[in-house]
């Protein structure tokens, strides 16, 4: 038995990747949950908003790289992020003006807006592929590892290495900063409070003189920022490929629903629940168990519950379980 190596292996293969992935899902789910709380529909175009924002960031990163600009050990993409956010903000505000506003004025049912958002999803999807192409794109630069497995082994003398990628560390730090900023905005500023009021009780918000169009505009801008940041962080951590963002829609919605749609705290909790479930269920536990258990009990097989190819099935199962047993989610979201 070797607990120290077991813990290191667990951290390396489960904890660190799941925390980074959970942060990305949490940022994505926050966007979905804000739209649901304030515009009152499930925005299926969110994944492709992430792709669009990330695409703009990738383009800007390439341009910066070609100009010889970089951030040293940090990825240049961080410098390009504000541009990506502006591009995504422009996209969602245009979409709102050209598409969603019409249905809002008609007071359309949420289910109609969901279908509308699917239309927007396909269009955005097409735009992104048209501009940057469907293939994988590399745009990460800077230092690759914060701690590499070899350095860690040399430092500690353990058999197992713990690698932390720069992108993973940046993901977590950025997510913490963004979430802190978002909660400060929602809870302390007048505009943020008016957004919560509008989400809570639309009629009373109107009676109080809160301008719905302004609330909607601010919400879209925040969502564009969250989507671009989540999309770029995911792209840095893995690679940028338009289709993966469409696939991310399922775990993101699972996160938002597990936490309770409309609840920002829930979206974050849900993101980590889904990420940890996905990683722990698709991880082959042979190595960790081999360290943690007496030799006589060490497993022969891989001890992998599900192949990684089926990782999206995990989100789907979580989604089904939550909808069956606690449809309002962990933090009592709402349903329109």
């Amino acid at each position: 038995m070797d607990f120290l190596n077991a813990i290191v292996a667990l951290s390396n293969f489960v904890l660190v990747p799941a925390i980074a992935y959970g942060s990305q899902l949490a940022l994505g789910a926050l966007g979905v949950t804000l739209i649901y709380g304030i515009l009152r529909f499930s925005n299926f175009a969110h994944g492709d908003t992430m792709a669009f924002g990330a695409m703009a960031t990738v383009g800007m990163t390439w341009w910066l790289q070609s100009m010889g600009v970089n951030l040293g050990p940090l990825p240049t993409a961080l410098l390009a992020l504000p541009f990506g956010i502006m591009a995504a903000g422009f996209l969602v505000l245009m979409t709102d003006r050209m598409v969603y506003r019409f249905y809002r004025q008609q007071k359309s049912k949420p289910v109609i807006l969901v279908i509308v958002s699917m239309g927007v999803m396909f269009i955005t999807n097409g735009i992104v592929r048209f501009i940057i192409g469907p293939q994988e794109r590399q745009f990460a630069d800077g230092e690759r590892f914060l701690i590499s497995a070899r350095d860690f082994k040399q430092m500690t003398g353990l058999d197992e290495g713990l690698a932390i990628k720069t992108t993973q560390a940046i993901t977590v730090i950025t997510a913490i900063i963004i979430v802190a900023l978002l909660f400060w905005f929602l809870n302390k500023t007048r505009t943020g409070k008016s957004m919560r009021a509008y989400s809570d009780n639309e009629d009373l918000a109107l009676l109080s003189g809160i301008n719905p169009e302004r609330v909607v505009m601010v919400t879209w801008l925040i969502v564009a920022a969250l989507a671009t940041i989540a999309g770029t962080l995911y792209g840095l951590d893995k690679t940028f490929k338009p289709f993966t963002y469409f696939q991310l829609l399922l775990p993101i919605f699972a996160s938002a629903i597990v936490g309770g749609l409309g609840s920002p705290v829930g979206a974050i909790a849900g993101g980590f629940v889904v990420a940890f479930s996905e990683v722990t269920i698709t991880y082959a536990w042979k190595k960790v168990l081999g360290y943690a258990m007496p030799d006589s009990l060490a497993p022969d097989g891989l001890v992998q519950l599900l192949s990684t190819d089926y990782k999206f099935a995990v989100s789907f199962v979580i989604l089904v379980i939550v909808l069956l047993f606690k449809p309002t989610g962990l933090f009592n979201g709402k349903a329109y």
Partner: protein
Amino acid sequence: MSEPFLIGDCMTGGYGAGPDILHGCTISVDRGEIAVIVGPNGAGKSTAMKAVFGMLNVREGAVRLDGQDITKLSPQDRVIKGMGFVPQTQNIFASMTVEENLEMGAFIRPDDFRDTLEQVYDLFPILRDKRKQAAGELSGGQRQQVAVGRALMTKPKVLMLDEPTAGVSPIVMDELFDRIIEVSRTGIPILMVEQNARQALEIADKGYVLVQGANAFSGTGKDLLADPDVRKSFLGG
């Protein structure tokens, strides 16, 4: 005789393009008064109040505030003109704290509203104790106080309450009536719809009994309580 401060004069109308619910109904409240609208279920009490507040399509008649015709204004614009309205249901932001509810009430005010906040807390001391608590966690009577407090934050010139005592216990109801009298003493005219006709008429300077969207009886609260017809039909003898 000068015209009352707020008057819905001979209002006829209904929701959107739907059928008329009010038929030449007149309701008014003057400075320093409490006016109460009572009547049987479905008489159009709440509808009459909503008509005064602009949530109804008033096809005939007019609504005037301080002599100014406001018939065509939206409810939001009437709030800016100085009308405070407390809906019957969903009249608070349940997920927000008591203090945030009051802040949202003052949303349209560009000036510093801390004085008003203190006044509301003085009027409803329980809200000061619970100001950091989510409004949705409060009891029914306390929620109504939050709702009235929220409406008071705009410093309205007239306050309209739609069944403020709906669904609260008789003890809480008495307390709420006391609070409403206190609000009235600060000089704000109050127009309210009430199910509990007898108690409401006791505190009313002016009462309206509506039947099928029209005025059946009107007079001072005391007169209506003494009127044998009103007693027989609405107050149970």
